[in-house]
């Protein structure tokens, strides 16, 4: 390619650069336009369509959606079974979140403040490792662990006891296993950020380990704890495959949405889908109050 051929292209780029010069807003618009469009159109657009569907009626025999306004689907959310399933789901999400926090804290603390750099690296890899395996593989592995002829019952048989088997307790174990990395990582990041000088100052001033933990470490890592809990809570809230495999027919919100989608009753499924969304929004508002987003 000769210089003569390259020249027009270069002058075009230069012209573009000149026209962008001194126009920061245009530059920003060009940079963010596409991603923002994707967010607004694809993400909020599909949410809007979902929300719209919740107000339509349907032909009960053929399942066709009839585009006539009704609030019936939201009234149906008051069914006793939906309320009890919602409470069960929220209870499970809280239980899983608390368990994850209790298990994750010591691990994250050791990783962030005690372990040598080499051990820390190995632990980070160990925590991330399960995330490389397929979520379905992990659930099916747990089915083999929890089943009547499974590893857990075999290991416990010398003690004369049996594992929890399938059901809500088994499900709680599986969820805790599945979401634990999502709690460890934010906690690890939060604990790492505490300046050592604060802890040293605390002990210099005569505080015991427990007091240092209670008055220095816990308050400073609390936002990270809340950030991790957002993951464990919301992931538990939205899951339907794990309950379907582990919970012995006990249903969670996701299962009801799936079942109604399969009837097919799209309007009711859409209305039901707004319940976990509302719960998460409420949770996030509370989390913001607690300062969780300052830790991000």
């Amino acid at each position, binding site marked *: 390619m000769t210089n003569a051929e390259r020249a027009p292209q270069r002058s075009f780029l230069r012209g573009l650069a000149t026209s962008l010069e001194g126009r920061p807003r245009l530059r920003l618009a060009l940079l963010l336009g596409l991603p923002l469009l994707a967010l607004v159109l694809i993400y909020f657009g599909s949410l809007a369509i979902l929300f719209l*569907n919740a107000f339509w009626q349907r032909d009960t*025999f*053929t*399942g066709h959606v009839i585009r006539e306004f009704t609030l019936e689907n939201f009234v149906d959310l008051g069914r006793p079974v939906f309320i009890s399933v919602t409470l069960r789901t929220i209870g499970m999400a809280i239980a899983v979140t608390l368990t994850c926090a209790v298990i994750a804290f010591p691990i994250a603390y050791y990783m962030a403040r005690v372990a040598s750099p080499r051990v820390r690296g190995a632990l980070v890899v160990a925590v991330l490792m399960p995330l490389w395996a397929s979520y379905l593989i992990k659930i099916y592995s747990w089915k083999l662990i929890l089943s009547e002829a499974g590893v857990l019952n075999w290991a416990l048989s010398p003690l004369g006891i049996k594992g929890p088997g399938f059901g809500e307790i088994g499900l709680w174990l599986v969820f805790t296993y599945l979401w634990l990395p999502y709690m460890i990582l934010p906690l690890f990041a939060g604990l790492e950020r505490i300046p050592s000088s604060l802890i040293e100052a605390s002990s210099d001033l005569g505080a015991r380990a427990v007091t240092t933990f209670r008055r220095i470490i816990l308050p400073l890592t609390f936002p990270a704890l809340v950030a991790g809990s957002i993951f464990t809570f919301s992931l538990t809230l939205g899951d339907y495959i794990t309950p379907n495999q582990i919970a012995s027919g006990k249903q969670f919100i996701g299962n009801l949405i799936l079942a109604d989608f399969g*009837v097919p009753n799209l309007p009711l499924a859409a209305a039901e889908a707004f319940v976990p969304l509302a719960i998460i929004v409420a949770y*996030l508002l509370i989390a913001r109050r607690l300062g969780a987003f300052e830790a991000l």
Partner: protein
Amino acid sequence: MATRRTLGLVAVLALVATACAGPAASPSAAPTANVTPAPTAPGTPAPTPAPTGPTLPTSVGEGEGALTILNWPGYVEDGSTDANYDWVHPFQEQTGCQVTFQSFGTSDEAFSLFTTNPDQYDVISASGDASKRLALAGYVQPINVELVPNYADIYSSLKDQPYNTFDGVHYGIPHGRGANQLMWRTDKASDQTRWDQEMFNPDTTLNLSVYDAAVYIADAAVELMNTKPELHITNPYALDDTQFQAAIDLLTAQRPHVKTYWTDYVAQMDSFRNGDVDLGTTWQVIANLLQAEDPPVAVGIVNPEEGATGWSDTWMVNSHTQHINCAYKWLDYVASPKVNGSIAYWFGEAPGNSKACDFIASADGFSDATHCDIFHAADNDPFWTNIHYWQTPEATCVDGRTDVQCKDFDAWSSAWTTLKG
């Protein structure tokens, strides 16, 4: 500051939502993978057959090179489950139509998949609780049975039935029929002959496995036809308030003993193999596969005395198909004595083609003269009077009663959800 916070909140919301969507989207088989807002295309206007008769294809031309099938498990086998059972590759060689197939676990799943992806599947094997809905909503098209030579050999008791022919118009080719059976682990339970021995026995000590679909309520209704004649149930899919409540009561008493709900036959096999359940509803193919394992899982299987629910299936063609010639070629191929017999033998059901029994009795690899007796293939076998084919419950009672309202499918679905809890 305030705007920055809001922005941060929005960003986190998006992050969380993507995280939530991650696992949910992974299994491609789950019907939620395709959340299209509404199946408008096929519904408006619903092409109910005109009284003058629909315009039907008059000839079958060259294949279009591709065919997508939505089928019950075991109905389309390409040798990947068992190398001896392959009727996909011969079809592809004969017709040049490359077959893509996807199986489903319940009629509701099939209906939902088919109607939310109205252009995706060319052919479907539909049981009665899906076929009528598909036809009346216009998702499947009328069939010119003249173009399906093997139709002539289909048992006459399967033709012109209320689940494959509407207003005198054929909507598909009958496939065959079978019954939902009772299976038990022979090392955990004694020999079974009746549903109320353990399955509907509120005091049973066994762990049960139940088919996970609202249509299972009909199994309870069949039991009530035997044990509570005073309820006067004549069709387990036509239940008025009292009859329906009695069925729900029976299932509520059963609920504490139910360990698993199955729709995936592989999962049902796992439950029996791992000893998580001792007794449950089944299809013959599940028992066959378990008994053929090495080492075999010790299971027994029976058609209980009370009768049972069952199915009579129909091969139907999408009204939007772009592969109509391949679809007709498949209809004829799958109804042939050889393929129809192979499927019936593999799945464990009565074939629809009257010549399939000869094939099963004599062909290499089958040579089973008892199959058609065991599965009561013959036209008008009295066995079928006790089998109630799956059907969609409607508010206008499907048994013909006009003095009462029956529970419609919505009521069944909602009761099923409540029952599982």
